[in-house]
């Protein structure tokens, strides 16, 4: 027999607003945001966690919303690139992306923006990356650190050499060279 879809009642807090909704338990967080709540800031590029376009901040950490089932996130706080506040890290990253022309088509951009906010948080907490030389020291946000940490977000327009200075500008640390 064909299995019947199961519905679940959940609450999602998206960009500061609470939404109660019923979701098919197969619905991803990405599709819940885009197709149920009409929040199309996170994008679907691959639906398999391979491109990063769907990146949101999930309870403060960057996460791939296409790999998350909405039913598992009842009560979660989700922040998209369109989120508040107007004066926080998110706004600084958004402005830096505009200033550095760190995108062209814009489709990967909201995911890049959320990912960049995640990177800044992770570095502030001292998390090392694959290119961090000293795992015990506080990592410095060099160009190589930014490039490594942002590599889960593909950009087919090829704006990487503008994305790195944008992330560094948002962090308040100048890039080592305009063109890296």
């Amino acid at each position, binding site marked *: 027999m064909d299995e019947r*879809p199961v519905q679940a009642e959940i609450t999602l807090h998206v960009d500061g607003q609470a939404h109660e909704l019923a979701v098919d338990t197969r619905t991803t967080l990405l599709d819940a945001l885009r*197709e149920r709540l*009409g929040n199309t800031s996170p994008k679907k590029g691959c*639906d398999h966690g391979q491109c990063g376009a769907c990146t949101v901040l999930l309870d403060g950490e960057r996460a791939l919303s296409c790999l998350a089932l909405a039913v598992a996130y009842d009560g979660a706080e989700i922040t998209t690139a369109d989120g508040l506040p107007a004066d926080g890290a998110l706004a600084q990253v958004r402005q830096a992306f505009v200033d550095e*022309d760190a995108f062209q*088509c814009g489709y990967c951009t909201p995911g890049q923006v959320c990912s960049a906010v995640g990177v800044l948080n992770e570095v502030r907490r001292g998390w090392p990356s694959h290119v961090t030389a000293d795992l015990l020291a506080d990592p410095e946000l060099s*160009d190589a650190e930014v*490039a490594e940490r942002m590599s*889960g977000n593909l950009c087919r327009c*090829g704006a990487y050499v503008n994305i790195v200075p944008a992330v560094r500008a948002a962090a308040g640390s100048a890039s080592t060279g305009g063109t890296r």
Partner: protein
Amino acid sequence: MTELLEPRAIGQALARRDGERKVRGTATYAYETPAEHPAYAQIVQATIARGRVTGIDTARAEALDGVLTVLTVENAERLASTDDRELAVLQSAEVAFRGQPVGLVVAEDSETARHAADLVRVSYEEQPHDTELRADREDLYKPEKVNPAYDTDVIKGDVDAAMAASPVTLDHTYSTAMYHNNPLEPHATTALWEPGADVPLTLWDSTQGVHPDRSAVAGVFGLDEKQVRVVCPFVGGGFGSKGLPHANVPLTAMAARALPGRPVKLALTRQQMFSLAGYRTPTIQRMRLAADRDGRLAAIAIDVVEQTSRIKEFAEQTGLPARMMYAAPSRRSTHRLAALDVPVPSWMRAPGECPGMFGPEVALDELAGELGIDPIELRIRNEPAADPETGKPWSSRNLVECLREGARRFGWHERDPRPATRRDGDWLVGTGVAASVYPTMRQAKSTAVIRFSGGRYAAEIGAADLGTGAWTVLPQIAADALGVPVGDVDVRIGDTRYPIASVAGGSSGTNTWGSAIVVAAREFRDKFGDRPADGSEVSGDVDQAEQDDEHSSYAFGAQFAEARVHADTGEIRVPRLLGVFAVGRMINPRTGRSQLIGGMTMGLSMALHETSVMDPRVGQVANHDLAEYHIAANADVTSVEAHWLDEHDPYVNAMGSKGIGEIGIVGTAAAVANAVHHATGVRVRHLPVTLDKLLDALP
């Protein structure tokens, strides 16, 4: 000569007008169009590469709660035109490639549509398929023309005689891989069919040209163009793959027609994009060069073999650059195709020039090594005074200046030409150069309207912004043509309600739409002066703009690469790319630079990462997702610099612009391959340059 605009807004590095919406994610792409109670569609694809559908069982799919309709090759509406067999969806039981649509499920939500598509059972009469491109195939044929309408073969002089008589010759085969455009936004459409309305069919479609898209769809369904509206304010990348509609567009329209009044949404999955959204054919290039001991070419020849599909021909014009790049009395360029059981190839960024500047530019590097002549000097020695193909003078040709300026900026003069002689720790280090070229084009048809209303000017034209900057650049052009501040000018694009515009392709968008805007704006100014009455408007066509036929017009560039190859593992890194381009006048240095570095980055990706691996046993691309089809990620790219000359070309158009969307990808892969040779002494003639091709031969 064209009267060039006085640059005031032109030349300013203005930030993108759509920037805020893009960083917030509030720019609306096709699938995201707000729609009342939309339905969702999912394609059912053929699971054989050649044969016939003998039966489709849709019972289980239709029994699923929430399924609205299942369209198949057995029950779908008959289309008015099936001339374009890629667009003639669900019209025939014949399967011409694996992944071809054989059905479409429409449901209340996307989860149900996907589930139901899995429940459709298709039976086939399977025939043996053939998806292997080889240069020695006996069924290669000569296409009538190559994309879009160039001569298939051009033969001048006697290449064989020059090869026999010259002291230095080269005869090697090079190849480029199969590439998929892979814009980050999958091909997607929201369609609404409202019978009885003046405009019954509305498509919010991700397209590089709303008018060409409308024309194709109207033809397929036998509608008047006025009965179709296409809307596309934002495109999440296209790189040619959204230049022509693919099967997903008529499929969505067909679903909408089956559900009148109900908006239907369809987005290709990333996996489906490897069979339904076009791709660049693999190319096999036999190169021959003949030269004297000073490096002067007596002959240049390229014989190209590539593939097309059985249902629709696309012949990539790979041999074109060899026709005009360098002076050589004897010249030959030919194209042969194999029609295989493969998906339909199409445009991908710089079709022709991109693959066609790999073989020749690596071959020249090999020749330079053989002669002991610097590769830049070798190119300078073969600089033609006029276009070797047409005999026409150049409108401007600054390849030599690009090479010299690039050499200065890159530090080329410090280079020791000997390969495999530099080591930095465990890394072998080398540098390479290649030339770059792209024709300057302008399309024949585009119209712009300039309006004045509420104290502001507006330019209206159905143009497309794929991230290329049209939202920002077209107002700069309009402002200078009107003689008003750019802040007073709005632009309205991406909708067939605005005047007709050509496709954003061939790096011709700004040249074409800008020319139409200048015609309209100049006439507006002549007619209404600088105090127009509210509601004043003027229309202008691109064919009213001056057209120069006396000159040959191309953009040129020089690409430099540094490669580092790990001596033990063969790992390849490219820490530095530098390009210098002669592209006429740069209208917006900020968005323009992004286009050039974007092209170069895609070229780096082509050089090192990208290859669609056709599995001949099943006839499909095995690595059909973004985990297995590698495109350059952030950490793969370190330094990419794009510079341009202050080039003045009075022949191309009123903006003095040559087009910048494609030249950045041309020559990049050759520069990288040449740098890898300089680092290691290993000559890789088959893209991508991967470590397995180096390991056995590393010093």
